[in-house]
């Protein structure tokens, strides 16, 4: 069982990455903070009795679920708005908005690094391009290469097959390299 100090240390180390992941997904700082706070509450209330070693994977899953919950709530809200405003959605009801969600140029996150120094600008551009990836590709890429989950853990967290994880990661890498090259950044 994780002690309070261990749980605190874990959360302190993971909270910023979780915030960034949520921010990449929802593109709104306040919503991202709410998601991370919600995830922290869920972890401490329901899983604080687990060993420390299990916390990273649990927290990662909780954050991803919290992001999905946010999009579900947003979808329900937009459905009601569509019904009352009599405007039809350009996408079918069955389509998953996370599959094709693209960043909107000029958003707050896209402009956040404009006044930074050169390295900061590069970091900002990379974050911006990561944020522009389709949601499932970004999720797979970040879980796999930022959260250090293996393919099986990533697949379990994303509730998809391991083959899909590999495909998403590969496509994300290619899309990211192409986008960064187009903006004059060679890694």
């Amino acid at each position, binding site marked *: 069982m994780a002690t309070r100090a261990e749980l605190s240390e874990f959360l302190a180390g993971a909270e*910023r*990455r979780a915030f960034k992941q949520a921010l990449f997904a929802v593109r709104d700082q306040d919503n991202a903070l709410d998601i*991370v706070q919600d995830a922290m509450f869920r972890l401490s209330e329901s899983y604080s009795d687990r060993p420390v070693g299990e916390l990273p994977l649990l927290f990662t899953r909780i954050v991803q679920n919290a992001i999905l919950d946010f999009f579900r709530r947003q979808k329900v809200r937009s459905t009601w708005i569509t019904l009352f405003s009599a405007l039809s959605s350009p996408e079918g009801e069955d389509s998953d908005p996370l599959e094709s969600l693209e960043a909107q140029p000029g958003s707050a996150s896209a402009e956040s690094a404009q006044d930074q120094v050169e390295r900061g600008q590069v970091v900002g551009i990379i974050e911006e391009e990561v944020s522009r990836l389709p949601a499932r590709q970004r999720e797979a890429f970040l879980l796999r290469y930022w959260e250090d989950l293996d393919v099986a853990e990533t697949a379990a967290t994303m509730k998809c097959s391991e083959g899909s994880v590999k495909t998403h990661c590969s496509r994300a890498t290619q899309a990211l390299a192409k986008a960064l090259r187009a903006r004059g950044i060679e*890694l």
Partner: protein
Amino acid sequence: MNEAEFAYRIRQALDEGASQVDYTVSLRLEKARNAALDRSSASAAAPVWVPALQLAGAGGRSTERNGSALASWIFRFGMAAPLVALALGIVGIKQWQSDNLVAEVADLDFAVLLDDTPIDTYAHSGFGVYLRTEQASNAM
């Protein structure tokens, strides 16, 4: 550059970006973390209400299993048991009263049939009422 190398460099940039979040964001994250930790310690320190039946059945080990599926079922049983006992008690009392009534009527019928009934009983107005009531209920 292969996928892993590229991803490693992206990861470095992302780590750098995550370490440079705004002060306001850091502050809110810290507050959220402390609130989460308080919830955790509060739930651990809070006295656990144990139903009487669960305590009687599980002895002192109930707190060890708190949170497990078994404890959950025992807890639910502990909640439902008093209600079940109350319902069984009500049904039992009703049955006992019904049996008593039947026994009294049988004793009376038996006494009438054996001619053990005192003669004054037939002259009592209540006995006539009783007979008419019985006849009416039998006719229905």
